[in-house]
């Protein structure tokens, strides 16, 4: 396979190079209990507080499948446009101390969700290979020495996370830039939150992103890929991908080759380093988990899951964009959906408020807690006061902040603060007075070069604001000054 589109992120790569990215995302499902036992699925408790014979893998214990986990995984599958089919759990066998049974129960050849897609806000459609259910491992804490398993004095294991339900969402290698990868991660996160499937906190590890990155000369086959782990934020994801692509290009341009390997992102140094080399494909000796029975969702199950799906972020962006008459990629639209303010914005626009001002407020002035409690009518009234000249942009921002804090009506808040935009005759009176009082400066403003005019514009605006106690509309005042100067 060769990509048909050139890299849209050519700027970070040397001319003629492209990169190819696929992401594997692990998400903890937002269940009350673990995947195969009744222990709480809860982060941050005392080590090994949330354990039982099953999640400790004690001899004789057996898994008991959590229905809620299956439901959430299937819901995610449908939100990602996957086929939800008969699935079978398998054992992935490998020895590691964080894994109490020395095998992981996962899905192999028959995953719950197969073959979907996710549309990036900027347009491209990214294929979803599969989204399968599996159990998480425990957590190792290496004490002393170098702090790694090889050189620590001893290691402690916390099995609270052991058996926490995960979905692993594997994308196709459809992304061509770190920007797209970041967009994918953000969009996936938005879907996980909207569907209630996961709290998707990268910093707490409830959403973990691994990136497969390769580079190639545009038009030529793809190169060898490396997998990057330990990406704890969307920002790290972008940095790590760009760094890794440049590292690989560096190797290739120096006549070296890229080894297929797993690499570790070091946030502090901003570099990736070798974690382990994949000499051969690991042999996990997968086989069907005999302690569990296959999952066989009926058509009715899938219809019920579909019916309960919320409107997804992509559809919400499209609806707001249409109402506002702007592209779905507009900053205000993206922010509105991300912050859950799209209903507010649509209602305000539907009530006759200016769409541009509404989206501007959402994008710049409503990144605060409580914004979602705003009354759409009152928010619309505020925007109307602003566009009607009753409030300046600065005043509107101040009033909006107070509306969020107190829930008050914009007219009352403006009045209480003495915000009354000057009518145009009062503004003209102030400006005429200033021209008379500062003849020399006025002459320089009229006849000077751009630099001098800029400086004097600031001088006069300062005086206008002073004379009007800050109630003059800056834009209107600038326009009047220029008109009077014949500019």
């Amino acid at each position, binding site marked *: 396979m060769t990509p048909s589109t050139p890299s849209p992120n050519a700027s970070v790569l040397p001319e003629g190079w492209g990169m190819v990215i696929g992401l594997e995302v692990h998400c903890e499902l937002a269940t009350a209990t673990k995947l195969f036992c009744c222990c709480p699925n809860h982060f941050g408790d005392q080590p090994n507080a949330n354990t039982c014979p099953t999640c400790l893998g004690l001899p004789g214990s057996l898994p*008991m499948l959590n229905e809620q986990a299956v439901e959430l995984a299937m819901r995610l599958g449908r939100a990602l446009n996957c086929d939800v089919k008969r699935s079978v759990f398998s054992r992935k066998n490998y020895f590691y101390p964080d894994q109490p049974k*020395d095998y992981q129960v996962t899905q192999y050849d028959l995953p719950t969700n197969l073959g979907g897609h996710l549309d990036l806000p900027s347009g491209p459609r990214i294929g979803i290979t599969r989204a399968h259910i599996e159990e998480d491992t425990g957590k190792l804490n290496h004490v002393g020495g170098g702090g790694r398993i090889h050189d620590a004095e001893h290691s402690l294991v916390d099995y609270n996370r052991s058996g926490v339900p995960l979905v692993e969402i594997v994308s196709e290698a459809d992304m061509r830039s770190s920007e797209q990868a970041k967009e994918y991660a953000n969009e996936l996160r938005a879907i996980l939150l909207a569907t209630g499937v996961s709290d998707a906190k990268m910093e707490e590890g409830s959403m973990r992103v691994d990136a497969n990155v390769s580079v190639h000369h545009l038009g030529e086959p793809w190169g060898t890929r490396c997998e990057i782990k330990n990406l704890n934020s969307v920002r790290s994801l972008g940095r790590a991908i760009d760094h890794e692509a440049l590292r690989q290009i560096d190797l290739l341009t120096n006549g070296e080759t890229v080894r297929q390997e797993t690499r570790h992102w070091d946030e502090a140094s901003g570099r990736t380093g070798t974690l382990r080399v994949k000499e051969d494909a690991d042999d996990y000796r997968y086989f069907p988990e005999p302690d569990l029975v296959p999952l066989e969702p009926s058509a009715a199950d899938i219809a019920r899951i579909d019916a309960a799906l919320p409107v997804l972020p992509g559809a919400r962006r499209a609806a707001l964009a249409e109402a506002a008459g702007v592209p779905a990629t507009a900053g205000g639209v993206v922010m509105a959906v991300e912050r859950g303010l799209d209903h507010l914005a649509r209602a305000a626009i539907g009530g006759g408020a200016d769409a541009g001002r509404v989206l501007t407020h959402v994008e710049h002035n409503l990144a605060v807690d409580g914004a979602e409690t705003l009354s759409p009518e009152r928010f619309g009234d505020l925007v109307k006061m602003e566009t009607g000249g009753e409030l300046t942009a600065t005043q509107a921002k101040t009033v909006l902040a107070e509306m969020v804090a107190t829930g008050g009506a914009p007219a009352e808040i403006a009045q209480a603060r003495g915000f009354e935009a000057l009518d145009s005759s009062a503004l003209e009176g102030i400006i005429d007075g200033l021209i008379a009082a500062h003849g020399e400066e006025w002459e320089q403003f009229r006849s000077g070069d751009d630099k001098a005019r800029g400086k004097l514009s600031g001088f006069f605006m300062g005086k206008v604001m002073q004379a009007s106690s800050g109630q003059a509309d800056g834009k209107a005042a600038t326009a009047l000054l220029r008109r009077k100067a014949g500019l």
Partner: protein
Amino acid sequence: MSALEIAAAVRGGERTARAVMEEHLSLIGAREAELHAFNLVTSEQALAAADAVDARVAAGDDPGPLAGVPIALKDNLCTTGIPTTCSSKILAGWKPPYDATVVERLTAAGAISVGKTNLDEFAMGSSTENSAFGPSKNPHDITKVPGGSSGGSAVAVAAGFAPLALGSDTGGSIRQPAALCGVVGVKPTYGRVSRYGLVAFASSLDQIGPFATTVADAAALYEVIAGHDPRDSTSIPEALPPVLPRLGDGVAGLRVGLVTELCQAEGIAPDVAARVAAAAEALSEAGAKVEEVSVPAVIYGLSAYYLIAPAEASSNLARYDGVRYGLRVDAPTTAEMYDRTRTAGFGPEVLRRIMLGTYALSAGYYDAYYGKAQKVRTLIIRDFQAAYERFDVLISPTAPTTAFALGAKADPLAMYLNDICTIPSNLAGHPAMSVPFGSGDDGLPVGVQIMANALDEVTMFQVAATLEGAMA
């Protein structure tokens, strides 16, 4: 006294559970050193439990259908606070923090554990010689093996140490020692009895079942331990039809198939074959219609079993790595610690099967071995289904010979052949049991195997009761 007689006496206040227990403990004291049925006898706990049963009777409560009945538990069943070793050094010092579902049900029924019985390490073997703690001996001739892997449980019942015992049967580990020790041994339908708390050998084959001296006692124990358990996802949700009320229904009109391939299998001794023929004759006389039947795919059972069981075992036994419990042999690195711990902790047969299973699941070999074995399993089920369209039950020898001498089968393959008649039922998931039916030329017990269709334990027990009656 049978288990049912003991329970009736205790519930009726005619005997105390303590008196019953003391009697059995004294029998154990007299012969245990010679027979080595147990890894651990829990006398103190047993007497305390007996007193508790007596207190309930005195208070007018009913302690349950097995009130005061001593029972021996195979040492791969988890018991709270009591070492559960699987007769392996690798579980040294481990005490489970929980009871197996069957142990909970026994306690609720008033039965009292006398201790944990010896087995081939992790239930891998057919003679109990693979125990890390030494072999058990056949009570009928202590120079002979009791069979295995549940040899200790079979010995305990045959020697009168307890009227009941539990074993586990993955390829014949209840039925074969029952045959060799002259007691009744039952492997129920896969999923009838919860595996929760049974230390896994091969999860898709393992099934817990009863040992008893009589068919009725075995049925009573089966009724107590069987039934749905949500903690085992492979547990069967269907309601459990009671067996005891139908035990005397006889076999008139039943169609009994004598399985040609198993009666003529490699190594079936003439004296054993003769006893099976006699059993067929007895059933015929009791009104059953007996015919020979061919179940062709069963001849591949042994080969399929020795891929599937070790494959699952290689994964199930991975957890014994020295990290969390049991034996740990320290080493400079984690990988070496794993290596040393497992090399020191597992016996040769367990290591052999882990190797076999790891190989069978390896990339490039899976289809040829594990995959093909699963297909054979499907064929065996298909052939059994065809047979059960024409027959209600099938019969065969349980084991090819009577009990053999300790040390006689050093070659693993010779040992594996012991299970040739029992393995097909495990692969199919069907119920099967062994009932004593006389003795061989050497005077040692011979067992006849009765196999039935999935979930049809009732008919199987009826046939067993008829055979038992014919011997009386």
